[in-house]
């Protein structure tokens, strides 16, 4: 995708001019887990680790730890086409973490995961950024998750950044002391009235 305006740098690298270098610094979890369906998790992770030029022993050690943590051993040699959405999600999460990148870009990473895996990912992300040297860009529609995990929240509506900062800063922006993030979101996007109307209409059925 070619940007139409603005300027983006990833650790000082222009991703348009130097896409390969920029991508090497990222770990990415897409919203939809459309992968090479014909590959097994083992074969997929081998491909990703090879493309990312990970040393064999590093790749093996990290894959082993992650696969055991997410209890993926039984599905490790089954084609992705045969796996549930939750298991496929675990595979893409592992693929994003395998090279321990300085920046994780996660689009709804908790989708389809079982509660145990959700807890692991949440704890892992909190630990990931704890030393201040690595970052996570997290995209979600679940405001509770954003409120729980994110240090800074940006509220995007139709491509426009309506608010940005800590949850406390966003509360200050709308001058409400104790609103949850979901309510802040609806207030900033001017959707509160729309939601009330929709519920009123649907409740008639």
């Amino acid at each position, binding site marked *: 995708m070619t940007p139409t305006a603005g300027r983006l740098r990833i650790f000082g690298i222009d991703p348009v001019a130097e896409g390969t270098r920029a991508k090497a610094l990222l770990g990415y979890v897409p919203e939809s887990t459309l992968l090479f369906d014909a590959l*097994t998790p083992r074969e997929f992770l*081998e491909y990703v680790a*090879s*493309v990312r030029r990970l040393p064999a022993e590093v790749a093996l050690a990290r894959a082993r730890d992650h696969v055991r943590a997410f209890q993926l051993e039984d599905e490790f040699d089954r084609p992705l086409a045969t796996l549930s959405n939750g298991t496929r999600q675990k595979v893409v999460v592992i693929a994003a973490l395998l090279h321990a990148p300085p920046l994780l870009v996660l689009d709804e990473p908790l989708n389809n995961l079982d509660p145990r895996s959700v807890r692991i990912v949440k704890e892992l992300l909190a630990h990931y950024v704890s030393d201040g040297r690595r970052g996570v860009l997290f995209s979600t529609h679940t405001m509770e998750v954003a409120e729980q995990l994110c240090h800074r929240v940006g509220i995007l509506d139709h491509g426009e950044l309506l608010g940005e900062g800590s949850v406390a800063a966003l509360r200050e922006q709308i001058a409400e002391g104790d609103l949850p993030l979901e309510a802040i979101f609806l207030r900033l996007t001017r959707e509160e009235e729309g939601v009330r109307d929709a519920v009123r209409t649907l409740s008639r059925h």
Partner: protein
Amino acid sequence: MPSGPSPGISEGWREAWRLSEPAYTELAFQAIYAVRQGNLPPGLPAAEVARRARRRVRQSKLLVSGLLAFFSLGPLLLVDPAVVHLFVLPYGLYLATGLGAVVVLDMILLWWTGLQVLPSFLASGVVPLLRSLPVAPRLLRRTALLLLVRLFDAPAATCLVLTPLVAGYALRSPLAGLLLVPAVLVGILFAVALALVSGRFFVRHVQGARGGGLRTWLRWSYLVLWAVPAFAMYGFVAVGPAFLRFVAALALQGPTGLLDAVFLAFPFSLTALPSLGLGLSTTGAGAALDPLVIAAGTLGYTGLAVLVGLWLRAAPLRLTLEAPHAPSRGSGASVRIATTSVARAIVRKDLRVASRTPGFAFLVLLPLLESAALGLWTFVAGPGSSNVLGLANAAVESAALLATFFGPAFFAIEVMGYSYTRTLPLPGRSVLEGKVGLVLGVYSIAALLVVALTLPRVFQPGLFLGFVVAELPAVAAAALLEYSVLLERARSKGLPVTSLYAGAWWAAAVSVPGLLESGTPLALFAGLQRGATAPFALPAMALLAVVELALVLPFALAATRGESR
């Protein structure tokens, strides 16, 4: 208020057809655009996408129907006096055998066609989606059956109408044409059932099979079986005359029991009906065809076809509703992963994808199986050792041409999962190295196969080995050219490289120059091989191949200088 199925909805065929319309469009969309496999959806309005998908499916069916129509002309060849005189065989037996070959060809081509589309049909999830709607079981069964029938409609209709029509015209007897209808009809039913059963086997045991170790070899073995129908067509054309001579020998020398056994095999008892109906001779000097055998065979196959037909009524629904992949117990696999260079990772990934995807497996297997078949043919044909060189060279030539013609199609593997893999740091040069390596690998293994099968019997082994090695730079140049064109196009247009190979125009624009590149040194060798220039044939071929490679290399390097997108 919860609402159930609407009362009074028709369960007839008209309603089933209406339901099958959007389901068929979805099938066509999945087959053409592979969005569920991770391809990016086309940036077009939904109606236009649906129209294009259906148009491309229609084009594919017309292509297969055209080939079937060509086979259906077989009876015209059969009655040609020049051909008839080649075989010393009672005319009735001759016609029954020849028409049997035509029906078998029709059946095998239909089966092969079914194999290409049935996995999509079984794993598409279209019928399970319909079942979640308030649709009566009978209506659902009819809709699933109609969906299956629509996959075969034009090709099956071509066989059913054209083959008897041409037979009737060739024999100047409408009755002969009518009497051939049962054989063609039974052949179609068998082909559809075979496609359904083998398609289900593939989805469960190849596509859904675990990876690793011996299982990989097992999957490739299944895929060799998958390619059998295609080679059966080739084989039947090749051995058809020999089979006719075998029947002729039986008719002349007997014994009758063996002739009866041949005519009890499908479809010969059914294709003997036109001969019997026209009162043509089925009696030779040494053996005679027993009408009771024909009656038994006809009744037996008709009965079997009825059973197959009954099975086909419900099978499409049952098979599309069952879990597409065989359940497998947890193995508690040891967690091992092995990394490699980027180019080798691409080759390994492509081969692994191909081992579970017949379309891609065919690209690998076709040159290999053809090399093996031509290599083995040198044993069967029993030519002199100098002619073995000619046959071996021809096998290597076809391996080179097939590898370079079909090679660019490996690019389409990148379509799968592209929405994810475009986020990987994958340089264009690594893609080029991997894909060219794969094409070279296919050529090399196919060529080595021919060498292994023929070298001890070749008159000039040094010349043959030199020929195999001399062609290698030309195959590399062809593959480099093909993939460079694709990558350059992707870089200059800012398009995802994966969507470039979707159209037939690009397939031709890329494959034809590659074919010329790999074919020119072969043509030069053939031109110089005779007469006084013979000693220069191999050096000239090798030189030309190296020059081609040297010319293409800078273009390839320039094409991969850009960034991955």
